[in-house]
């Protein structure tokens, strides 16, 4: 079984790829451009099979997934990690801002699942894991586009689980809270401190913890979990 990680050059995607590589999983990784793979943090993944993929490009998505289907005999997993954040208050949010975020976070996932649907159904073993966010259910200032896209991802997941279930394919969302080494690295330290203080576990999550949860969702113990959003946020959303 091959595992395709879409958006593997980002912090979360790369963390998942490194974890799965340690477990000897056969991987196909994508990033938007080959230049985005030059990051020294991706050196461990240099020996993997990488493909260029702009997730907003339907035709390119179909080409990549067709190749993964051929390579794996339609026995593959799909992990969608591509994500974009462009926080602005609603009054300042342009349609261009909105489209940039939703096209990557939601449209791209739709293109990928649709392209993979028939192949996964024939292969009868696949797992789909979509990386979501607690922003889907917990409003954060300035995150209208991001929150809406992640909420859409959860709805997409449930329908995919329903339609693919009869073929033995599962689909779940892993909704992460703020991660110490994820997109939070782009915000002010005070924001991270505030979130930590409001989190029952008193700290942010880590990419390694997300990767571990994804590996669980790909494994045999998660064979009967589908259509779910698994929340991993240190208890932030429980309060």
């Amino acid at each position, binding site marked *: 079984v091959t595992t395709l990680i879409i958006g593997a050059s980002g912090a979360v995607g790369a963390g998942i790829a490194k974890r799965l590589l340690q477990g000897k999983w056969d991987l196909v990784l994508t990033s938007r451009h080959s230049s985005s793979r030059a990051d020294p943090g991706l050196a461990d993944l240099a020996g993997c099979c990488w493909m260029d993929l702009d997730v907003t490009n339907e035709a390119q998505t179909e080409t990549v997934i067709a190749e993964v289907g051929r390579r794996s005999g339609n026995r593959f997993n799909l992990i969608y990690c591509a994500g974009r954040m462009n926080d602005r208050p609603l009054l300042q949010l342009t349609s261009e801002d909105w489209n940039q975020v939703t096209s990557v976070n939601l449209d791209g996932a739709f293109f990928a699942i649709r392209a993979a649907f028939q192949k996964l*159904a*024939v292969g009868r073993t696949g797992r789909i894991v979509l990386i979501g966010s607690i922003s889907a259910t917990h409003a954060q200032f300035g995150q209208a586009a991001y929150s809406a896209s992640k909420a859409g991802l959860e709805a997409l997941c449930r329908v995919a689980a329903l*339609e693919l279930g009869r073929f033995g394919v599962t689909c779940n969302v892993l909704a992460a809270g703020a991660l110490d080494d994820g997109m939070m690295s782009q915000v002010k330290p005070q924001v991270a401190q505030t979130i930590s203080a409001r989190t029952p576990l008193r700290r942010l999550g880590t990419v390694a913890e997300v990767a571990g949860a994804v590996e669980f969702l790909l494994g045999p113990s998660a064979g009967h979990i589908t259509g779910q959003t698994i929340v991993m946020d240190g208890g932030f959303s429980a309060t």
Partner: protein
Amino acid sequence: MLPPEAVKELVEIALDRELAEFDMDANLYDRYELNSMGAVAMFVELQVRTGVEVPPEIAPLLQTGSDIARFVELKSTSNSA
């Protein structure tokens, strides 16, 4: 050529029920109340059994058992040519 019995089996899988009789020239959607998700299951099963993939843009054009059998024959011929 996919025999009528094989096509009937595919339709039964799609419908989740057995058919007492099956007309290869009947419209699957009208006569047997095949729905779009059932059709997906039918074409997936067809691919599993024959290796012939029905592209999503072609699937709506295959309305009868005979259409399916002809498509499989066409694809098998073009693959072996």
